[in-house]
């Protein structure tokens, strides 16, 4: 029996962002942009979607005089990611 996959996480870029944040306490916007290879505009849109769902917290601050956007995964996001991985397992087991 297939478990439903969270549509918010079942997207290449949003899943990559969540996977980067899962192993970090926090990450800055340029780091996520560089690692995912996404454009700034597209990444901003996807971060907003994750933030609106409560999966990540986005903090806009300053590093010296430069603006700096810091992203962190929230407990809700962590739980959603765990559930997503669990759901993925059902697809893999069936595929064997």
């Amino acid at each position, binding site marked *: 029996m297939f478990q439903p996959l969270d549509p918010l996480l079942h997207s*290449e870029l949003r899943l990559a962002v969540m996977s*980067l944040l899962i*192993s970090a306490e*926090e*990450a800055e916007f340029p780091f996520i942009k560089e*690692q995912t290879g996404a454009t700034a505009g597209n990444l901003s849109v996807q971060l907003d979607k994750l933030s609106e769902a409560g999966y990540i917290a986005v903090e806009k601050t300053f590093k010296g005089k430069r603006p700096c956007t810091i992203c962190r995964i929230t407990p809700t996001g962590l739980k959603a990611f765990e559930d997503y991985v669990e759901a*993925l397992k059902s697809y893999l087991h069936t595929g064997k």
Partner: protein
Amino acid sequence: MEEKENLTAERSLEIIRESIEQSRRAMTKQSGRPMIWWGSLVVVFAVLIAYLWKNHGGPVWNVLWFVMTLVGIVGNNMMDKRRQPVPRNIIGSVIGKVWASFGIFCCGLGFIVCLAGFGVLSFQSLAPASGNFIPITSIITFALGMASTTTGLILKNRVISICSVIAGISGFFVALRYPGGEQLLVMAAVAVVGLVIPGIIVNIQTRE
């Protein structure tokens, strides 16, 4: 990376694995430069202090190690500001604490030995059973080897670990053989093997 939503389970797992691996690789990449910086500083100061010790007034010049620490911290902070952002994670935090512990122990030990060197404390009271000799270079070399090996193990980098074990253990015994100013040259060699060479190798390995 585009906004694809028709992923297979395999592709999803691949994205998760790649992203976590990228994050770890970014951490390793950033560890090379501080190793080269601190290793080079130790080499320069060790050679300088060894020269001054031999030609201009003896071991009192060891106070320059405290100057090196200050120069190192200032330089490190400047590098931190210029480098590309790295995610703050448990790996970076643990490595930072390992080196902070190393710094605290070495500065504490060095400070007490300096007090004895300036006559504020007596060597007899500090080390009565060892003939007034405290093998500080051996101890610091050993501690440096341990801190560097731990860093290599946390980063799962064999080069750092192997170089650090060799530097720490061999440096400990070789420094014991040279109680005079020459021990600082041993310290310089340990810094090259335990910090500079692994730092350069890490930089080469992680270059894209």
